[in-house]
């Protein structure tokens, strides 16, 4: 990977990060949730709604034994309406501000101005969903049911309604129409478990590296190395270890994990010492 490509990748990631300064003056750097995650959350929620309705229907059937067909019909019609209107609103009003689908994907709804997420914003953003989600379906349904309208009219309708549904793909902040109207964002809010500190353990039988051998890498490489070490995949570790050995000109003499762990610890210590002196070296292309 060249320096230019590397920088490009980093700005692409940074684009998704929005400054969000708390009253204490700390920038929390919220990350905008990707459209894929949001689609996933939507699918989970719609499935959950359908399953809920189905179970409720079975329950009513079981209580009433042989219920007439139109009771089933009423359950589905009214239930579907109430569930799909209030499922999203109800869950997003809770303190997690996320539906079960959103929780599963690790995302949540936030007020764009950094203030409190109010009930009216939640209601507004979810009622607009009706338009984004069900209008294209309705258009298709109408088109299939009646052929008195010409095919072109239907096509135009479907395309028009699809631009509403896909609105979030066309703006930087991945806002739906509903987010726009309600003044909200959907951001990442995944829980991250605190992993053990892999640099903490005492160094027994550690390999010593010279300063010149450590000077070849920066922060980006260090954190990639941390990811590999936490992943514990022997094939990936072998590959990385070989790359580092080639780079600093060391023969293969130790086990890969011992080699990588020693290298990680000493590289981390070196770079963190740099931080204390105000020197932050982003990656291997940056100068010392």
């Amino acid at each position, binding site marked *: 990977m060249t320096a230019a490509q590397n920088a490009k990748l980093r700005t692409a990631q940074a684009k998704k990060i929005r400054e969000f300064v*708390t*009253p204490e003056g*700390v920038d*929390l*750097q*919220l990350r905008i949730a990707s459209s894929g995650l949001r689609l996933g959350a939507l699918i989970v929620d719609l499935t959950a709604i359908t399953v809920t309705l189905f179970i409720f229907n079975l329950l009513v059937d079981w209580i009433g034994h042989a219920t007439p067909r*139109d009771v089933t*019909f*009423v359950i589905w*019609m*009214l239930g579907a*309406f109430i569930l799909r*209107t209030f499922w999203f609103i109800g869950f997003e009003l809770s*303190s*997690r501000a996320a539906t079960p689908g959103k929780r599963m994907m690790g995302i949540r709804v*936030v007020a764009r101005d950094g203030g*409190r*997420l*109010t*009930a*009216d*914003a*939640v209601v*507004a*953003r979810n*009622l*607009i969903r*009706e*338009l984004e989600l069900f209008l294209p379906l309705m258009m298709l349904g109408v088109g299939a049911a009646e052929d008195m309208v010409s095919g072109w009219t239907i096509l135009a309708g479907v395309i028009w309604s699809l631009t509403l549904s896909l609105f979030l793909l066309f703006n930087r902040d991945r806002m739906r*129409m509903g987010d*726009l*109207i*309600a*003044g909200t964002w959907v951001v990442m*809010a995944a*829980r*991250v*478990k*605190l*992993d053990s*500190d892999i*640099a*903490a353990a005492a160094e027994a039988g*550690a390999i*010593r*590296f*010279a*300063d010149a051998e450590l000077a070849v890498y920066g*922060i980006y490489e260090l*954190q990639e190395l*941390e*990811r590999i070490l936490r992943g514990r995949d022997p094939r990936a570790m072998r590959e990385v270890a070989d790359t580092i050995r080639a780079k600093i000109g060391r023969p293969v003499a130790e086990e890969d994990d011992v080699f990588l762990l020693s290298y990680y610890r*000493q590289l*981390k*210590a*070196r*770079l*963190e010492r740099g*931080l*204390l002196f105000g020197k932050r070296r982003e990656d291997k292309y940056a100068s010392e």
Partner: protein
Amino acid sequence: MSAAELPGFSTSRFRAEREADWIAFDLLLTRLEKKGAAALTSDELLQLPILYRATLSSLSIARATSLDKALLDHLEALSIRGYFLVYGVRETRLSRIRRFFRYDWPAAVRALWKETLIIALIITLGVATSYSLVASNPEWYYNFVPEEMSGGRDPHATVEFLRSTLGHGKEAAADEQQSGLHVFATYLFTHNSQVSILSFALGFAFGVPTMMLEYYQGIGLGAMLALFAGKGLGVDFGGWLFIHGTTELFAAALSGAAGLRIGAAVVFPGARGRLEAASDAGRTAGKVMVGVILMLLVAGVLEGFGRQLITDTMLRYAIGTVMLLVWLAYYYIPRREDVA
């Protein structure tokens, strides 16, 4: 200096010193998120902001001194969760609901009075248009009311049949029971709610589709009115409509007004940014829409039960009028909060 030598400030030591706070904060947050503020003792509630600030300060220090990605990610996620809980929930759900009913809902409706008047005018215009057309030539009726909605109520029907659809007398009521009236009522409720939600949601397209939708609602109503009036059943039909219609049409007008407000904010944002104007309008409109759905539920109950049980036309008019007055009083009589 050898590379293995640890510097005076070690991130491992930093973590060891502060980790207990993070774990305690994490536990408190998890309980708060699961069970709400009631799950915490007052001691723990007092600790919450202290632990929150400790975590934020840890995050700042870690960003400046540590390169442990797992540690940074954890602190960031913990701080974000903490921020939204500490600054997010200031009210209990109950007081939020009470405030909504006592103040927010009527205030939002009052704020939309201009838009409400415009939409009411548009609906009236729709009624007048189709009424005059159908009254002069009944064949127009078929253009306005789709067959599946009319259920046989068209210009060729007999007066007796039309009267029976208004649900007078016990036999008619029993008849309707058997013909799956509750299915029809459910259909009507979900249909009306959906039309209302749509006319709100379509508002951002400069309000034009909203106005068209509301006009169309008036058209259907006017055609029906002309049909019944033409057969000398105008007063009876009025009662049949009035008992739930005042609530339902009011709700329809409010949903249109909410949509129109958003459309107007998009076209004329004024001194604010377009985005800001739209989200301001969206919040007011959102409050109104909660009210609209509640009103439609009331209308649905009146339609389903009230109309079955009360068959006297005058009584129907009375109930409809009372409902209208109740809504008007609830929304438009000034409160003490307005002065403050």
